């Protein structure tokens, strides 16, 4: 297959020849037999890798399945997603992670790399069989109780130590549970006015500080999920300055949206479409997160794609589920927040959304430099133009996007997984 007229990381137009799942040739004016795709000057990025996706299967197939979730990922330009462990049953055994891994292979829209739970049932009491998951066909390297914090300091220390044996990483959902009992939104000016129980920044920052110190003490790898506050950024910057092996992610929504939307938005006050954990924070936090992503303090953009059925969002605020879908809007949001603001170029986007997450997740086939011989995992992205976000067009089973009615830049034109198109002209193949 030949892809005509594309710009690698936004550079000069070239053509690409794909063969046997690899990039076979890069150059101008390529011709030859086989299918030809007109790239129309699109930017080529290495296929995006999400470190943080909720596919909901098994257990909540009404919200998402591995099939619809990976279709959604492909439409968003992703070639690999890490499937979080908070399913039902919880992905805390080799059996469950292999089931998810197999479902991913069967559907084939993108690679599905299961994340294993740190503790049995995400209950924070006893380590799950981390080694068995690592040794399984799913080859788990990322372990997380995401949705819940591994708040017990001893258990966290042991997990960090234990996964060193198989080069694993613990991805922490940093939320001090006692400081966030009944928490509904960022604690600050807006929560005080709205009478919603606050989720204070310190509840995230205290856990991150503790975990950085623990990771340093035992010489292990720590990954911090969905960093949301300016204070967290400062702590991670400090830990990295010490040379400690700490990485961090930020979600697209924390790069764009703020907590005042809970009070005042086009969809009305207290609309749970903005309810998410960790919560939307302030403009100052957004600015700090953008700066941190730009300077590499935050390594990765991860979606925290969290599908929920309509009835779990069309409720009063406190009864609603937390989370937002994000796979199909992630790249556009990153363009809006980082590229169009001059904070990141396309090489930077490729690093934060493909190379770095693949490195942290230990996915050797993804996030490779776009050169001859590399796996043909590619995302073609047209950054020109702006379109209104239309949830009805999502491949995801769920519609809980905070961007409905908003206009975002760019669109994913095509996605290639090992040389095979999973999306062409914006549509699933």
């Amino acid at each position: 297959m030949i892809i005509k007229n594309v710009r690698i990381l936004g550079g000069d137009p070239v053509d690409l020849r794909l063969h046997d799942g690899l990039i076979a040739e890069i150059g101008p004016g390529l011709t030859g037999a086989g299918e030809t795709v007109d790239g129309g000057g699109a930017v080529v990025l290495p296929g995006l890798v999400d470190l943080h996706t909720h596919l909901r299967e098994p257990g909540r197939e009404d919200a998402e399945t591995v099939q619809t979730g990976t279709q959604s990922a492909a439409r968003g330009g992703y070639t690999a997603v890490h499937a979080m462990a908070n399913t039902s049953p919880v992905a805390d055994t080799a059996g469950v992670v292999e089931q998810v891994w197999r479902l991913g292979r069967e559907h084939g829209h993108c690679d599905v790399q299961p994340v294993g739970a740190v503790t049995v049932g995400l209950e924070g009491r006893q380590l799950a069989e981390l080694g068995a998951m690592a040794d399984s066909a799913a080859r788990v390297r990322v372990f997380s109780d995401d949705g819940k914090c591994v708040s017990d300091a001893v258990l966290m220390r042991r997990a960090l130590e234990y996964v060193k044996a198989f080069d694993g990483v613990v991805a922490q959902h940093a939320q001090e549970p006692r400081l966030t009992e009944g928490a509904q939104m960022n604690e600050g000016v807006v929560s005080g006015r709205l009478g919603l129980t606050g989720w204070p920044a310190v509840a995230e920052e205290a856990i991150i500080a503790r975990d950085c110190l623990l990771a340093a003490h035992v010489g292990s790898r720590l990954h911090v999920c969905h960093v949301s506050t300016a204070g967290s950024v400062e702590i991670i910057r400090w830990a990295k300055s010490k040379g400690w092996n700490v990485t961090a992610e930020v979600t697209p929504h924390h790069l764009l949206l703020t907590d005042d939307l809970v009070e005042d938005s086009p969809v009305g006050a207290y609309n749970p479409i903005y309810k998410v954990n960790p919560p939307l924070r302030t403009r100052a936090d957004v600015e700090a997160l953008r700066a941190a992503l730009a300077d590499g303090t935050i390594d990765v953009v991860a979606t925290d794609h969290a599908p929920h059925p309509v009835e779990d969002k069309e409720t009063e605020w406190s009864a609603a589920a937390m989370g937002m879908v994000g796979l199909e809007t992630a790249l556009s949001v990153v363009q809006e927040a980082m590229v169009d603001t001059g904070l990141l170029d396309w090489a930077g986007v490729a690093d934060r959304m493909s190379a770095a997450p693949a490195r942290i997740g230990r996915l050797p086939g993804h996030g490779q430099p776009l050169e001859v011989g590399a796996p043909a995992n590619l995302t073609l992205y047209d950054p020109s133009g702006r379109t209104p976000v239309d949830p009805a067009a999502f491949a995801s089973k769920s519609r809980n996007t905070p961007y409905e009615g908003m206009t975002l830049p760019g669109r994913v034109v095509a996605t290639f997984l090992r040389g095979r198109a999973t999306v062409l002209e914006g549509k699933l193949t």
Partner: protein
Amino acid sequence: MNRHLISAGDLAKDDALLILDTAEELARVSERSIKKLPTLRGRTVVNLFFEDSTRTRISFEAAAKRLSADVINFSAKGSSVSKGESLKDTALTLEAMGADAVVIRHGASGAPHRLATWVRGSVVNAGDGTHEHPTQALLDAFSMRRRLGGLDGRRITIVGDVLHSRVARSNVLLLATLGAEVTLVAPPTLLPVAVGTWPCEVSYDLDAVLPKSDAVMMLRVQKERMNAAYFPSEREYSRRYGLDRDRFAKMPDDAIVMHPGPMNRGMEIAAEVADSPRSTIVEQVANGVTIRMAVLYLLLGGETVA
């Protein structure tokens, strides 16, 4: 005026004064032997109460009935809500029944905002979670205006659990709109972290504020706060923030004492203070009916009292 009354902050000064003035006129009706007005004949007011609050419900019920509206009381207990029906489905049911106004009391902050997106009728917030209770603020302002002669420049002190108080939130907003100077007094644990952004002063020292108060409003301390480390003990709270006889003596001679009820006598307020002639607590209840008549009248009826 807005179609709904959800937050005291939605009321411009003219709106608030119109409600208070209308209530004055309606109060004169209440002094007649026949209290009923035909104004809302044929209109339906639904009292949708997800929390037990007999006082507020009967106050709204009496207000609607005195205006000749048809009143439907919908209590969550024993209804389809207790079987898991969503707020949205309840709203659609009320909509199908043709409710002209829905008075909602709900344990979740913001429930009236959500309701207003699903029904066409007017939504009146009768207390939502720890957010607001605008008709309480209006009846408090009405009571204060009657006793103090006006609110502009008056110094109003609100004491107690501001963090969890819908009464405090609505009062701060409304009193600021009406030109009063509000001071909140509470232990720091019971104030929102960003209370400095509110249109009022804040103090931790009740004794310092009392001599400079024209009205002191004591908030109820909920039992569940007592076991959640907001303060060390009931007695310590009472010593530092309770309005006892000695503190009452520090207030100016013509200053009044208020409480939205129900009271914890001996905790936030001493019995002899609550029962003193300078207490407006019983008047507040009576004024509640009047102010709710004014609100329903203005939302559903017209501009002038017939």
